[in-house]
């Protein structure tokens, strides 16, 4: 209750964060009610009389027209929110979990744990994102699993570094020492006393990771490493590109999924921008 009230108060004071949160809310609602909202089955090949309804322009029956194979664009965009949310949230949770855990261990325990984690982070940060994902997709089988794995495996160092720095300063606080004096085990100090203090920061990095995951999924799909059976914004773009939607000027086909991707990525950055003041009060003073 207290958390929800504080969150609303925070949104009122931070228009950036409020817009970001609004975009996320819309996408979640659309994803949940996608079956009711989409006017046609997203992969159904529609017909006009005996002929396939290809490249229909915007009309009352098809608000965003149809694709080269006669599928309703609006229905696909609506259905695409689901895969976007699944990919985005799963990858974000994985990034936050790995990054927070390793950052917490490295920051609190120090010593060789810190050295190993920092060394791993340096190596991972040196890996090029797209080639890594494409090679992985080529070696295994393409699909969202590869996307989520890549985002989780390559983006955790950013979260881990920030959490580590935060934990380094928290561990010097007297109340951490008080936890030791009052009989807390090291694990209890880390997970019960220190972890809750860094969770807001971790969540912030999670919201940025959502955007990264969706971009990664779109890139992989666009380059043909997506799962063509799923309906996602990236697969839509690839479909449009492969069928010369650009040269035909069928912007009603490729613009909506592009805009949807942009909106969702933007939402993550808006939230992180809006949270700056909350998390780094010193910045706000300047």
């Amino acid at each position, binding site marked *: 209750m207290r958390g929800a009230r504080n969150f609303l108060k925070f949104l009122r004071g931070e228009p950036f964060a409020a817009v970001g949160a609004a975009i996320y809310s819309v996408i979640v609602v659309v994803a949940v009610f996608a079956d009711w909202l989409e006017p046609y089955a997203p992969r159904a090949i529609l017909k006009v009389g005996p002929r396939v309804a290809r490249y229909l322009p915007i009309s009352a029956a098809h608000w965003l027209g149809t694709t080269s194979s006669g599928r309703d664009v609006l229905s696909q965009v609506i259905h695409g929110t689901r895969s976007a949310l699944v990919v985005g949230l799963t990858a974000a949770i994985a990034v936050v979990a790995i990054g927070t855990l390793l950052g917490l261990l490295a920051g609190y325990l120090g010593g060789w744990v810190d050295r190993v984690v920092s060394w791993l982070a340096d190596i991972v940060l040196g890996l090029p994102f797209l080639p890594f994902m494409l090679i992985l997709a080529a070696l295994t089988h393409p699909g969202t699993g590869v996307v989520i794995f890549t985002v989780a495996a390559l983006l955790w160092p950013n979260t881990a570094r920030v959490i580590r720095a935060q934990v380094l300063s928290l561990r010097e606080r007297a*109340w951490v020492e008080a936890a030791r004096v*009052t009989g807390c085990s090291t694990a209890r100090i880390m997970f019960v006393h220190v972890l809750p203090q860094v969770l807001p920061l971790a969540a912030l990095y999670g919201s940025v990771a959502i955007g990264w995951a969706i971009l990664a999924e779109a890139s992989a799909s666009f380059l043909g490493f997506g799962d063509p059976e799923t309906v996602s914004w990236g697969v839509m773009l690839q479909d449009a590109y492969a069928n010369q939607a650009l040269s035909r000027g069928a912007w009603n086909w490729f613009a909506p999924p592009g805009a949807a991707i942009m909106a969702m990525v933007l939402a993550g950055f808006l939230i992180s921008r809006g949270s700056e003041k909350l998390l780094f009060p010193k910045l706000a003073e300047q």
Partner: protein
Amino acid sequence: MSALLEAVGLRKTFRARGRLVHAVEGVSLAVAAGEALGIVGESGCGKTTTARMLLRLEEPTEGGIRFDGADITKLHGNALRPFRARAQLVFQNPFDALNPRFTIRRSLTEPLRNFGVAASEHRERIDAVLRRVRLTPPESWLDRRPHELSGGQLQRVVLARALVPEPRLIVADEPVSMLDVSVRAGILNLLREARDALGLAAIYISHDLALIRYVCERTLVMYLGQVVEEGPTAALIAEPAHPYTAVLVAAVPVARVDQNRAALPVRGSLSDAPPTAPGCTFRDRCPHAMPRCTADTPALRSISGDRRVACHLGDLP
């Protein structure tokens, strides 16, 4: 009289930027059950490091610590927990000593939970301890968070947290130096009442002899990591045996603005002579320094019964 806590030859060396810093140089002390011991000295003299070693928050580089007859120097993890339950710490800065996200209830439940007190007893113990520190009625404080409390109230909670596991020893590191002068006496009196009622031993760490005189029966004076004088507080203040103790006594502020005071019997500043070199560490600042002070290190020796001093003055070879 057997000691509750006894430390022998405590030494602590830190490595800072490749340089060795000798924070504590062979401190031995003992506290009897129910006794209040003061440790005074200026900042950097090693008094806090000594206290942290006594509580096993800092690993001694050398030396041993016994609590209630048992050697606790090498204990770790779960083996250390019974000692933790019986030796508690009152922090200097009450604004930083409580987890800002925890309610008072949660902060006071933590020690009980960790020390294996049955959950059914928690409420009763917490209520009792809040009454003891005069945060009444207890139920109106339980669900508050640290940011809602003043410094004096926070320090009462910190004291309550130290008392709730029913310890036998309290270490108070500058317990009132961060508080408004107006609430200092209140906190010190609470501590003393709790000690009297529960028969607690206490170690007070302070730079302030006036505070030490108010609460401690016996006092250690530390200078640059070593004990330079030890004895009953009253005698030590009335008749300092070590020139450094005399400086501390002369530096105690007096509540009279119009009086003329003699200059402090000290000169120079902290010596940076390596502590391994022979000689007295205070010789550069001492008004009584003599050739012998450079040549050999004064050992702590007994003078008149229960007083000890590490100074060549009055020690005729």
